[in-house]
């Protein structure tokens, strides 16, 4: 393990006992915990600045507007967007992807077109494309995943045959929430662009876990959730290249996104307002800005190194458990900070319930990844996912707890 300061003091939630044991929170793939700084940003907003934005000229409204637009600019810097207007606030990754699938899909997809995605997508980056394909008559195709344990990642050789000029859009996840596989996003964008396809990156699992630069990635759209990067629930982002956003019709309509409304019709503001109908989630946007500050103060490349070190350690120690089947990248190949595994004869839900008794928070199930599970011959896995506040000792606690469970069920 590289040396890494202990940041647990920043996270109030970590300092509690669960079932009489110190909480070992290893469910960061589902959601991350919030540092004091982010919670404080919420409190400060509501105690000092709360007001509606945009349409107000009084002091509180101007402060709220400055805070909200400041957060937009902060997030643009966080992902190196060329222009804050490329940052659209949404509820989260799922809404961001739905926005593209509907607005872009409605305008551009037609029968004969192909939407390409992969076999390892989260339902949120899969079902919206099924719906867009169904609505437009386009066909949905999948880049296969290689190996009995999906250890080979995406089949990049198959990509050549799949990436025909009929492909109008390629949507893929940056990091798989089930496998821990890290996809070569820059290469995928480059190859998609070569056939003229628009690219959508699901960055739910990569945002806040490593540096991320939309211009270097070369993507057209990128979606993420605040709650997976130390930010609050209820806020997320759709990044879209300006040139594309300006051509897109709005998804939702209403106050704040119109220029002129008559009883006959309406005209729209440009991005980002065009895509933000109604009162936005001001407080959580501002708190998301605070999360960016927090993560950058720690250093996202260091966080990435810490995550990877923890998952490497976990891989090593978990491999010693009898009968374990670990899916995703093999020991020694790059893997994000999560490990998914299964045991013959002991179901993930029983594991999660037992681990919880030891204070260890794990996730068991299909991880919103049913088709991939089915392909791997599994119905569920248990997943341990790490973040900046996890420690090597917590992995020991995890492994000890799993040993106890296995013993119990071996009877």
């Amino acid at each position, binding site marked *: 393990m590289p040396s890494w300061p202990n940041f647990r003091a920043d996270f109030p939630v970590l300092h509690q006992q669960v079932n009489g044991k110190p909480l070992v929170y290893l469910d960061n793939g589902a959601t991350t915990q919030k540092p004091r700084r982010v919670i404080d940003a919420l409190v400060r907003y509501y105690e000092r600045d709360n007001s509606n934005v945009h349409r107000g000229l009084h002091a509180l409204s101007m402060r709220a507007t400055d805070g909200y637009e400041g957060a937009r600019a902060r997030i643009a810097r966080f992902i190196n967007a060329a222009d804050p207007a490329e940052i659209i606030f949404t509820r989260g990754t799922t809404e961001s992807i739905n926005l593209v699938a509907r607005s872009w899909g409605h305008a551009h997809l037609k029968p004969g077109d192909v939407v390409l995605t992969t076999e390892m997508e989260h339902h949120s980056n899969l079902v919206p494309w099924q719906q867009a394909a169904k609505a437009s008559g386009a066909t949905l195709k999948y880049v296969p995943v290689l190996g009995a344990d999906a250890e080979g990642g995406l089949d990049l050789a198959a990509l050549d045959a799949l990436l025909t000029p009929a492909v109008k859009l390629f949507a893929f996840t940056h990091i798989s929430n089930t496998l821990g596989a890290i996809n070569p996003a820059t290469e995928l964008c480059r190859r998609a662009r070569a056939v003229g396809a628009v690219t959508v990156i699901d960055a739910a699992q990569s945002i806040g876990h490593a540096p991320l630069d939309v211009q270097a990635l070369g993507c057209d759209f990128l979606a993420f959730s605040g709650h997976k990067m130390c930010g609050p629930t209820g806020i997320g982002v759709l990044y879209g290249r300006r040139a594309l956003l300006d051509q897109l019709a709005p998804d939702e309509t209403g106050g704040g996104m119109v220029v002129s409304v008559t009883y006959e019709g309406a005209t729209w503001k440009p991005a980002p307002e065009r895509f933000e109908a109604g009162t936005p989630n001001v407080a959580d946007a501002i708190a998301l800005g605070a999360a960016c500050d927090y993560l950058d103060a720690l250093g996202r490349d260091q966080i990435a190194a810490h995550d990877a070190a923890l998952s490497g350690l976990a891989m090593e120690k978990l491999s010693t458990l009898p009968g374990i089947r670990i899916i995703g990248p093999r020991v020694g190949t790059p893997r994000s900070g999560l490990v998914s595994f299964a045991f013959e*004869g*002991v*179901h*993930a*839900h*029983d594991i999660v*319930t*037992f681990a919880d*008794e030891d204070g260890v928070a794990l996730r*068991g*199930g*299909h991880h919103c990844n*049913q088709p991939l*599970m*089915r392909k791997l011959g599994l*119905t*569920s896995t248990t997943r341990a996912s790490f973040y900046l506040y996890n420690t090597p000792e917590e992995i020991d606690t995890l492994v000890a707890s799993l040993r106890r469970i296995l013993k*119990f*069920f071996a*009877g």
Partner: protein
Amino acid sequence: MSDLADLYQQVILDHNRRPRNRGRLPTANRVAHGDNPTCGDQCSVYLQLDGDRISGITFDGSGCAISQASASLMTVQLKGKTAAEAENLFGVFHEIVTTGKEPEEISDIGAFAGVHAFPARIKCATLGWHAALNALKGDPVPATTETYKD
């Protein structure tokens, strides 16, 4: 650990390890499928209904120890019962898993009383039962794989 020991009683572990009446029932004239979308647990129940009486019952699927043991035990309990008796028994079972109260005259299914301390697991315990009741209520359907979604 006391709650856990209550949850995973010997009866449950036993049914989980050696499920009874597992697999397709070739003579089934009713089938229903239950999903626990939260967990991904799945359970199919095959019934041979002779008039109003369950003369044969099996289950199939995958899931946690609680859901598998519950379905297994259920097949044992329901065999030979009428539809009305089955519904009645489910009422008793539901009461057990939600309140933890074990009626005295009930034996094996009382083992599920520990579930009540784990509200998130109640759905696991009732999955097979719901499938069975649906099969009882449903139209007679040939038990082929085409009749239920995987």
